[in-house]
């Protein structure tokens, strides 16, 4: 009974602590651009931020809701507060916590799982922080090289590099579905080249078309299963 009471009290204080540090982190992360702006003598353009949010922010908001619904039960209270603060969920925190749970055979939804997931996410976050801090110290002497004109084309093409990698990653999951929005976008950008300056806005019709096609395909599959 004492153990149960202790655990209940631990969970209660974890929620309180998790909420407090999440709010502080939010304030720090939103405040940092203003602080840096003050230092550099330039403030953020809030109109541009609002326009940017309407174009890409909505996509990431939907993604955040899905991540919250799916990952919170896997990670428990402490693990999920920490994971949403420290990020890198899909590529690191989730597989790391799952690996730790499997190793010690902790069952989801148990007190043991709560403890193991928190230990795992906290350790993983600390390792990332240490590796990145050491890496940044090593990057400082390399800055003249990184800023050389020879490397300028590399940094000017960070975005195409990202979308090349992501194209292979996502197109292979459903190549037929991918072809339709890709072809529609190619036709649109070819016929109206001025759209290039509003590429991020074009994510909305392109994403909506892809989701609609995925929905139609899903409905067809569900009906097929029901009919079988």
């Amino acid at each position, binding site marked *: 009974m004492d*153990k149960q009471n202790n655990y209940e009290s631990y969970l209660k204080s974890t929620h309180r602590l*998790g909420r407090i540090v999440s709010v502080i982190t939010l304030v720090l992360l*939103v405040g940092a*651009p203003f*602080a*840096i702006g003050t*230092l*550099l003598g330039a403030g*953020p353009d*809030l109109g541009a931020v609002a326009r*940017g949010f309407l174009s*890409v922010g909505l996509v*990431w908001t939907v993604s*955040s809701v899905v991540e919250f*619904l799916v990952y919170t*039960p896997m990670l*428990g209270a*402490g693990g999920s507060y920490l994971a*949403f603060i420290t990020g*890198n*969920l899909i590529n690191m925190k989730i*597989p790391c916590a799952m*690996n730790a749970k499997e190793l010690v055979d902790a*069952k*989801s*939804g148990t007190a043991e799982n*709560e*403890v193991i997931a*928190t*230990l795992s996410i906290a350790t993983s976050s600390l390792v*990332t922080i240490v*590796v*990145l*801090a050491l890496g*940044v110290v090593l990057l400082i002497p390399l800055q003249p090289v990184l800023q050389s004109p020879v490397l*300028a084309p*590399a*940094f*000017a*093409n*960070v975005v*195409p*590099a*990202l979308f*090349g*990698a*992501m194209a*292979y990653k996502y*197109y*292979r999951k459903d190549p037929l579905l991918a072809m339709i929005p*890709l072809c529609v976008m*190619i036709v*649109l950008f*070819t016929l109206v080249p001025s759209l*290039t300056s509003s590429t*991020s806005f074009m994510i909305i019709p392109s994403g909506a078309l*892809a*989701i609609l096609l*995925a929905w139609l395909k*899903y409905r067809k599959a569900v009906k097929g299963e029901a009919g079988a």
Partner: protein
Amino acid sequence: MSVLEQLNSGGVYLICGAIVAFIAAVCVIFLVRAWRAGRALGMDVTRMKRAVTASATFSVLPSVGILLGVLALSGSLGVPWPWLRLSVIGALHYETQVADAAAEQLGVSLGSGQMTVQAFPTIALLMSICIMWGMILSTLFNKKYLHRLQQGGKTETRKSGGFGDKAMVAMFIGMVSAYIGSYVGGFISGNGLFTFSGSRTPLAVVAAAALAMAVFTYFSEKKRMAWLDNFSIAGSMLIGMLAAVLIGQ
């Protein structure tokens, strides 16, 4: 003083470093509390140690991959800001895309030559705002959500499963298609309708990065080198960026 020199100044390092230090302290507090709670519950210390050790070793390689992401963004946004973003909350694919969308609103590009001191705070603010929803949802609903699941006797929810997963993939397919469509359209009609004289570099970079990703995936899936996954996105991006250097535009 150049824009990048200002973005890499001591003051910016101090602001970003202080936030990273705060998050590190939060992690230590959660770690110690969970350890003590485990002891109080009578959990085997050896198993808890095993979970910590396994998580530490598991995280080293992905962290090096994330560091490569800091390297990729450092030429546009300086070192301290990508360091903060990728240490604390972000993920490489998110940061790059949102930073580019913000730059687009300001009429600049992430290329090192075009970044301005005036553009940076706007880009940084959009990067902060777009990805804060996980934390907000966690703050508002974590307790209620877990409580409800516990009462329902569920350990995991798959309410959004089924179509939810497919919608996520479709959303990313739509996003990638918009960008690749713009590179193809830019090449075909960038300098006048159907002149085929626009820049080929973004297309070459897309092709190089996609090819690199295919190679990473092949070795990861077919040759049982799953650890390569940790470097696949950042490694493919760096190979794509190398292609831009070789083309020299």
